[in-house]
């Protein structure tokens, strides 16, 4: 290879250096650093760290019931979001995919909650759920269901579901947009052909829409799982993880270990364990979805 050719190839690589440097500094380095710190006892202040190897990971796996309870809470919210939030998003996307009046207005309205700050959404819903002056309790009273009134976010039986509702309200608009984009990419001729063949709406959905939407369903499901398992902002602005441990989630446990207990290394180890769990769940989800597609 002559020197001109080498210079030309190297010259091309120069163009990706800025992006590569940014990726290395802000993504790759912090990512690897978490694994590194997970093997140390480190308080986040003193530069001297004590190497503990796998101890933090082992302790999380065998001796930290609160962390696994928080994982279960996040899983419950995730299952609810996967079913209710995505079903609602799909129904609305199907409705807006048709030529309905004010379709664009609905799209804008449905997409407002996802763009709001989670903290702001939490504060709004805190007011709605308030035990004394909350809108929701007023509504129940109006519907002659006053006996159901309670402080929804402070009741052990309802707090987690109340938080899940907030999360789903905030999240459905995002799924709606993605699903609608998927629906609009399906050639209209297929629907016309189905109509000519005498298919009703249900048959059309099952035989035309659903098979072609499977890649979009996989995408929405995986992103719902990843997004919901990492829920935090709504928790911190509504319940703070309480009452008791009823709404603790993995991220709130990591923050508690990091800032409350001063165990930075242990919190990083929690992040590693949590990341591995998410990876496993995502791989399983993708494999199951692919198997369904082939079936």
């Amino acid at each position, binding site marked *: 290879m002559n020197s001109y050719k080498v210079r030309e190839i190297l010259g091309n690589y120069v163009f990706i250096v800025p992006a590569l440097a940014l990726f290395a500094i802000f993504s790759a380095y912090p990512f690897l650093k978490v694994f590194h710190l997970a093997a140390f006892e480190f*308080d*986040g*202040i*003193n*530069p*001297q760290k004590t190497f503990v190897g796998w101890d933090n990971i082992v*302790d999380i796996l065998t*001796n930290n019931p*609160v962390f696994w309870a928080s994982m279960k809470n996040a899983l419950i919210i995730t299952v609810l979001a996967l079913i209710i939030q995505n079903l609602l998003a799909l129904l609305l996307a199907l409705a807006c995919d048709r030529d309905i009046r004010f379709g664009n207005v609905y799209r804008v309205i449905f997409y407002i909650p996802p763009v709001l700050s989670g903290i702001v959404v939490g504060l709004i819903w*805190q007011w709605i759920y*308030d*035990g*004394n002056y909350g809108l929701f309790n007023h509504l129940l009273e109006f519907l002659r269901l006053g006996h159901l009134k*309670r*402080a929804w*976010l*402070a*009741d*052990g039986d309802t*707090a987690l579901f109340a938080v899940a509702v907030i999360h789903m309200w905030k999240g459905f608009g995002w799924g709606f947009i993605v699903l609608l984009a998927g629906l609009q990419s399906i050639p209209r001729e297929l629907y016309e052909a189905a109509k000519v063949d005498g298919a009703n709406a249900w048959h059309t959905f099952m035989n035309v829409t659903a098979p072609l939407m499977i890649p979009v369903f996989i995408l929405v499901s995986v992103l719902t799982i990843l997004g919901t398992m990492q829920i935090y902002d709504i928790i911190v602005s*509504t*319940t*703070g993880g*309480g*009452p*008791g*441990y009823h709404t603790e989630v993995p991220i709130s446990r990591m923050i*508690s270990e990091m*800032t*409350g*207990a*001063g165990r930075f290394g242990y919190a990083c180890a929690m992040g590693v364990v949590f990341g591995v769990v998410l990876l496993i769940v995502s791989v399983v989800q993708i494999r199951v979805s692919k198997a369904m597609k082939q079936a």
Partner: protein
Amino acid sequence: MSDREDAFLELAKKYEAETGVRVKFDLYAPSESYSQKVKAAAQTNTLPDVFGILGESRDLASFIKSGFVADLSDALAKDVTGSWRDRLFEKAFEVNQFKAGNSYGVTPGVYGIPLDMTTIQFVYNKDLFAKAGLDPEAPPRTWQDFMVAARALEEAGIQPLVSGFGEIWMLDALSSNWAMNIMGEEKFFDTYRGKVKYTDPDWVQVLSLFKEMTDEGVIVPGAVTMVNKTAEQTFANGRAAMAFNGSWCVNVYKGMNPTLNYGAFLPPQVSASRTIKIWGGAGSSFMVNNRSARKDQATAFLKWLAEADQQSFLANATNNLPANRKSLKDLSPILAQFADDIDNTTHPNVYPVHEDHRVLEAWSKGIQSILIGEKTPEQVAQEVQTAKEREMSRKK
């Protein structure tokens, strides 16, 4: 601390006019963000000349052991104008001071200058007390008085007590006030040392107080997940007659409801045999960066800031308790009530022994479970003891 920005800027101008030294204040909110910011600054060696550490004594100890904080003992001792230290409340120094043989292994010394002080007590709405037929000038002193007052308020259709019990440190503060009152400090600390179990009847009695409040409907619905800011709004708007809050609330209530007619009282005594200890001491403190080239100038500025004129100015401008004894005479009546009990304060940062964060969390979360009627005091005591034993076995 960002609510004090105007006052600090004013003081910076005054200091520059007097000494020619320019001081730049950078204030950050909320406190959690600031705590992370100052830790990150330490990691990158970019701490300012003077900084605060919002955290537990464990964090301050780690900053000191890492060489980030200057020992001010000599500067305090060398003061030629009389003892600088004597002008400030001893209680305010306690949180910044490490004595010989401290559990953190920090070289004995004074590592910070207190800017102001706090005490955490109960506040009550005098108008709502009068409405319920209670004497607005005679707040409850004992647990029995407290429950009588709470029942009277309830009968008058007034919600008795609100507090930010969603912030677990508030539950820790209130419950430890009662725990020290019921069992005494030695037994309290022996529990932290692992010599007394949380299942001891005295600890169960502490938890039972929360159960009694729950059973009698004393606490505002939803307070168990409420942040203190929301609780402050509830009290300031007259939606609850009493609140457990710190002296900083004077400034907060002034902003929320300037006409609020209220007073302060100590947490009701459960046992008459011991005076009730409350959380308090230094509110905010400033530390000098040990690696700063301007260490002497930074120390001189802190000394100036702790003088009576500046302390009085800060107390008036921010409605906080001053750290300087001479500034007490300028206090408003409500702040004076909070200041009355400064000598009776304690704080986890000055405890001789410290409980593990996970055990304290299990304790406070357990109280939340009692407040929602989910668990009994005995169940919670057992769970906390299990958490304690788990932590003790971890440390072995």
